[in-house]
């Protein structure tokens, strides 16, 4: 998918990019839902950085929600540039932490500025594009990047550094792809609604995934008509953001177990999405998958299909209560627009068919 620049002069009255809470009290919707089955509430659940918000943003985009306000564009510029700075800071901090020197003296100067004083307004100056890119290409930073499983870094890093020439300019206008690629940790709960035909509306609910955020999920458990659980295939060598000594896969399995076996969801269609397939395939080409799973045959570790099959078994083994015929498993690359569209369409069909059966 190419970079689509959202026109700065969209029609008035169009939806804006980010959803707003559709009701003041999410529980208030429950009585209405029970009486009136015209609204289908779908929860996006999963641990931190599994791609819930990325899928949410994709669904917004292919339902005609665009970037329409000037204010919105300004905020998005800020968010993208903050991402650049955070990525740069994390990388520089990692070189210190891992004891890898930044090689070029001018890059060391840049690193100092990044840590101490650089802010998003500075990035309007195109000279920063060169300086940051040169830092990114520094052998020390690249070595730290190769060891990124040892610290916390966003998946967007490479993409953002490769697009600095656009971002570091006073004419910068964020593209749809920029917005999809940008990492923003979701705090709390947001939702959006759209028509799905037959006079029905689908309400998609996005939530934060870290441990403290999961305590908020329960507010929505009563009103749910379907659950889409996301887990990242490429997290097999990573530890948690909120607890850097805890393996992400273990956490995902634990959360999946709690959600899928929750009594409130017995009768609810359940979709398990293995996300970040693109990153995963790249990662297993260079990193050992079997190192992390003692039960996996080492000879198969470069075969993505075999790896995904193994992961699927691992997750399905957690299901003790939920009827298996209402569980669907799919893979996804949420940053890929076409793939997201196709997978979400399948998910929607699965949910609607299951609803019909009731």
């Amino acid at each position, binding site marked *: 998918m190419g970079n689509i620049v959202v026109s700065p002069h969209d029609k008035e009255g169009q939806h804006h990019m*980010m959803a707003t809470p559709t009701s003041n009290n999410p529980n208030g919707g429950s009585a209405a839902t029970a009486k009136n089955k015209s609204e289908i509430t779908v929860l996006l659940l999963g641990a931190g950085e599994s791609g819930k918000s990325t899928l949410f943003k994709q669904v917004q985009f292919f339902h005609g929600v665009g970037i329409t306000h000037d204010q919105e564009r300004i*905020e998005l510029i*800020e968010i993208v540039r903050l991402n650049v700075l955070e990525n740069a800071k994390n990388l520089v901090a990692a070189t210190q932490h891992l004891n890898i020197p930044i090689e070029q003296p001018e890059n060391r100067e840049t690193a100092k500025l990044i840590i101490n004083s650089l802010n998003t307004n500075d990035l309007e100056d195109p000279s920063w594009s060169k300086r940051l890119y040169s830092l990114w290409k520094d052998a020390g930073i690249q070595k730290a990047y190769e060891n990124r499983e040892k610290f916390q870094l966003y998946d967007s890093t490479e993409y953002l550094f490769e697009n600095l020439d656009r971002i570091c300019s006073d004419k910068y206008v964020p593209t749809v792809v920029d917005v999809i690629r940008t990492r923003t940790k979701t705090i709390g*709960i947001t939702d959006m609604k759209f028509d799905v035909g037959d006079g029905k509306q689908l309400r998609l609910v996005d939530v934060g995934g870290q441990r403290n955020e999961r305590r908020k999920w329960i507010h929505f458990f009563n009103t749910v008509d379907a659950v889409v659980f996301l887990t990242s295939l490429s997290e097999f060598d990573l530890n948690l953001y909120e*607890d850097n000594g805890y393996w992400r896969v273990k956490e995902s399995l634990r959360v999946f177990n709690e959600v899928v076996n929750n009594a409130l969801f017995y009768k609810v269609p359940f979709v398990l999405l293995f996300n970040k397939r693109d990153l995963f395939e790249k990662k297993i080409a260079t990193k050992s998958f079997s190192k992390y799973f003692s039960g996996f045959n080492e000879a198969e570790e470069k075969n993505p299909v075999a790896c995904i099959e193994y992961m699927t078994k691992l997750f399905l083994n957690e299901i003790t209560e939920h009827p298996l015929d209402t569980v669907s498993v799919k893979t996804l690359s949420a940053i890929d627009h076409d793939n997201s569209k196709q997978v979400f369409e399948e998910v929607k069909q699965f949910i609607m068919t299951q609803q019909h059966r009731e």
Partner: protein
Amino acid sequence: MIISCTIPVFFLQQVDNSNSKNNIKEIGDADLHKCLKNQKWNGLFLKYSEQCFACEDIMFWNAVEQFKSVTAERLKRELFYNIYRTYIRIGAPLELNIARREFGIPEIESQFNVLCKQVSYHHETLSVVGKSNNNNNNNNHQMGMSKSRYVDLSSSENISVRSDIFDQVQLGCEHNMRDNFYRFNLTHSEMSAKLVRRGLVHNDDNEGVLFNPVE
């Protein structure tokens, strides 16, 4: 002496809003700061965040502003203690979404433990008066933890808590707020646009508009 966890929210009047008329053209962080430092907008943003289950960052931010404005050591210790127990501790009622090895959290944790040790040691020596004092301090800080908010911090007189101890966490919270602040801003600019269209508010009336888009 005992300050409940919710009180910090009502100390907003102490938030400095003297520089809210500052008209330097800045975007992003500056807008968020303006909003947080202005009593009315802080309240509106807090209300909005409550609706999307994300109020802990703003409440913490406000609590830290209060903490920083206090000079009396004893009150500062109490605020530190309450902030830790309300927002930072694992499983805290309003636990923040932040990485536990960053933002100076390890330092805050050890400061809390020092504080608790002092306090519970004091309590224990009082309670064992008259008995043989075998001074077992293994479960000291456990005691401090379970004492909840009724703990008497007056005994920790020699401990001074740094005013900037929460600064990094506060910055982290500002970061966390960005996504919701963005939506909050949109909701308000939309609302005010509607009001203007209906002729209910004049365009130059600042009531409904938080920030004008950059000229």
